[in-house]
Each structure stands twice: as C-alpha cells, then as structure tokens.
C-alpha cells in the first residue's frame, strides 16, 4: 500500500510545480497584455492599488496607479487650472472604457475646453461635497456633479453612517439616526447588496477571483457552454429574480434588478437617508459655488435598467422585481428634479441621450451585466452635456495658461 502511494508522489509534486509555474506565467502575461487580462477576466495587475484609505472620503484614488494623474484622478495630466471640473462615480470615471472614452474627456474633445475628471468609483454627491474645495482650487468656470441612480444613495448613506468619515452628514433628528443604525446593525445593506449580486466568501469564489489558472479553466468552460449571451440567458433562467435579459434585434443586455432595487428602495430608511444626504450635498455645493462665482450643474445618470424601460411597452415584461425597480427609480427622479428646480440648480438628465440611440438599434451599454455605458453611451452623455453648456453658458471659453 505504502509503495503504491509513493508512486503517486512524483506525479503530485510535478503537477503542483507545473500548476504554479503556469500560474506565474499567466500572471506576468495578464499584467503585460490587456487582451489576455480580458480573457482571464482580471484587471491588469499593477504593483500599486487603485485607491488608498482616506479619513474623509473613505477611499481616494492612488496617484501611483496606472492611468491616474499626480492628484490621483483619471486624467492625462493633473491641471493647475481647468474650465470645467466633473465630480462623479464610476459612470464618470469610465469603468470598462479607456480613459479617452470617458464622457468628461469626450466633452473636452467636443468643446475644446479643459475638463478635469475628478470622479472615482463608489463616490456619490456626499463625496463630491468633500472634494469641492479641491475642485474649486482649479478655478473652474463650471463645476459639474453627477447623481447616478444605481448606487449613489447607498454610497451617501455609507459615508455618513458606516464609519467615522462624515458623521456631520447624519440626520439632525436623533430618532432617525437611531432607526437607521438599528436597521443597519440587524442586516447591513452592503451584505444585502452582495447577496443580490451573487457574491460569496467561498474558496471557489476566492480562487475564481485570484487564480489566473482558474481564469483559463473558466474561459474554456464558457467557450464549451456557448456564447456569452447564451450563458447570460442560462444564468437568468436559473436566477430569474437576480437577472433579467433584454433582447430585441441586435440590442441585448443583462440587467440586475434585485441589486438595483436594494440600492434604490426609498421605503428603506437608509436609502431614504441617502437621498436626503445627496440632495443636501448638492444644495451645499450650489451655495459654495455661488459664493465663489462658479457656475454649477448636475448631470443625472439613470440606471441601465431604467434606460431600457423606455424600450418596453410594459415594464412587467421583464419581471415583477424589474417593474418595482422602475417604479422606485421614477419616484427618485421625480423627487430629485423637483428638488433641483426648487433650488434653482441647472440639471442635465441623461435619460434621453442614453435611450434614443436604442430606438435606432444602437447599443449604449454592453451585452453583459455591466451597468456602465459603453464608449457610445459615454459619447452620448458628453454630447448632451455639451449641448446644455453651449446653450446655458454661451460665454464659456477656454482659459489661458495652465
């Protein structure tokens, strides 16, 4: 028995060494090549992390990270003066597209103005307020803040209530704070969101995320199972509450209504608080901009789910949860638009810009479950913003000097 077992030892040792060697080769290859990183479904590796901890913002983009400027933001160069500063989240940072394709950079190309992108994933209006003085230090003629329906309310709530970053943003009524903290201690929102996204902490999930060799095996399995779209359809059939697939002609995409519904559930006191914080932050930004003689506008970015709802005769076609989500988002936009009108804040609603190309069969989002606009969608936002700037701020011209 002992002799038989020992015969396997060289096989085990050599197999293990080969797997380690292959893992190392794939790691180096994925870090040097974007197409390889895409096959293995990993971001290109870098010796630096994309963000650093920050006592006020929670996290802050890392200047050392490839593609970030010396201030840490995603621009070709850090500017000393800018005509427009854009504050936003991943929709504006340009997650999933090249830096040149993100809408602030496209706006710069369209308008010939110097546009500084001060967006970072997971930021919301509360973060924009924290960054405002840095934005004003660039002496812009216009500050643009964004409000993305997909998770900004959650991000605002988290900054105020889930740490010591910005407790001053909490509600002035102690009973509201108590209710919110009670709810959060019973069932944290972030856990609900992670579970709606299908994430778990298993060894399989860890290997899937961290091993390049597992990435190759996944790619082989996916090829065996059919196209990405076939797999999306199969996934949606298995998890009808989590995913909803839209398909009409060449237009197709995967939506995540359950996750979005948690982050937009205004009946949850925490999300309701997130909306209040978002509105209060925009109001404070408007006041500060007015003091410094800087124009201020807000770009309202709907979720992909909401954009595609314009293509349906009945939203329930994509399921009950999807229908409920569309109702909640509609309510949020109604409240926000009424708030902005009341405050006299200029707003640019990106819904038509992102949905009208769909009428002509042009996709503004990817086929996958990615909720960010594709390069075409990013351009559409830039064009909508440029149109408003040309109309509302006709005297805006590029400032001289840097």
């Amino acid at each position, binding site marked *: 028995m002992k002799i038989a077992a020992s015969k396997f030892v060289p096989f085990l040792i050599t197999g293990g060494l*080969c797997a380690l060697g*292959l893992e190392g*080769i794939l790691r180096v290859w994925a870090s040097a090549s974007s197409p390889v990183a*895409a096959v293995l479904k990993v*971001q290109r590796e870098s010796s630096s992390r994309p963000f650093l901890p920050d006592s006020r913002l929670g996290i802050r983009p890392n200047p050392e990270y490839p593609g970030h400027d010396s201030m840490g933001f995603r621009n070709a160069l850090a500017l000393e003066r800018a005509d427009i500063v854009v504050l936003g989240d991943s929709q504006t940072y340009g997650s*999933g597209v090249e830096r040149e394709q993100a809408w602030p950079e496209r706006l710069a190309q369209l308008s010939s103005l110097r546009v500084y992108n001060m967006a970072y*994933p997971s930021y919301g209006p509360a973060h924009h307020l924290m960054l405002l003085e840095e934005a004003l230090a660039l002496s812009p003629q216009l500050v643009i803040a964004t409000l993305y329906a997909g998770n900004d309310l959650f991000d605002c709530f988290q900054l105020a209530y889930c740490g010591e970053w910005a407790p001053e943003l909490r509600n002035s009524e102690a009973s509201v704070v108590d209710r919110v903290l009670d709810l959060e201690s019973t069932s944290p929102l972030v856990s609900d969101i992670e579970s709606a996204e299908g994430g778990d902490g298993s060894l399989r999930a860890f290997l899937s995320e961290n091993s390049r060799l597992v990435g190759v095996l996944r790619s*082989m399995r996916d090829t065996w199972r059919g196209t990405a779209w076939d797999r999306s359809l199969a996934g949606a059939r298995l998890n009808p509450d989590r995913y909803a697939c839209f398909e009409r002609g060449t237009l197709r995409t995967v939506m995540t209504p359950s996750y979005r519904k948690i982050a937009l559930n205004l009946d949850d006191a925490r999300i309701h608080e997130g909306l209040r914080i978002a509105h209060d932050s925009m109001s404070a930004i408007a006041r500060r901009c007015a003091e410094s003689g800087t124009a201020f506008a807000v770009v309202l970015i709907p979720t992909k789910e909401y954009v595609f709802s314009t293509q349906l005769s009945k939203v329930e076609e994509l399921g009950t949860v999807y229908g409920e989500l569309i109702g909640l988002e509609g309510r949020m936009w109604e409240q926000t638009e009424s708030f902005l009108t009341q405050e006299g804040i200029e707003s640019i609603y990106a819904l038509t810009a992102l949905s009208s190309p769909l009428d002509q069969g042009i996709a503004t989002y990817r086929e996958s479950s990615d909720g960010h606009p594709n390069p075409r969608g990013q351009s559409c936002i830039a064009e909508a913003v440029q149109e408003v700037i040309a109309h509302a701020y006709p005297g805006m011209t590029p400032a001289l000097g840097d």
Partner: protein
Amino acid sequence: MVTPTEIKEADSILSRYRSFLGRTWLLWVLPMVLVLAWVAYKAYGEGARAGDFAYTLH
C-alpha cells in the same frame, strides 16, 4: 550533522526523480503549451472579446 548515508539517499531520490521527469516530460509540457496556446488564441485570435468585463457594483 548530515551523514554520508543520508547524502547518498538524497542523491538517489534526486536521480530517480530526474529519471521520472525524463520519462514523463511530455505529460507536463504538453498541457502547459496547450493552455498557453488557448489563452493566446482567445486573446489575439478569432475568439477575442476584449472589454467583456463584468463591472456591476459601481
């Protein structure tokens, strides 16, 4: 202190392992080459789907 007998034993194990690798090298090299060829084909060949990331959360 390592004794001459222990050194001899270690040499013998290493020599047997080298002989094992000599006999089975194709078994290890072939899958590695195939895996790397697969990745190259998917990344640069017809199967390339660059940018098909799944960013959902933010």
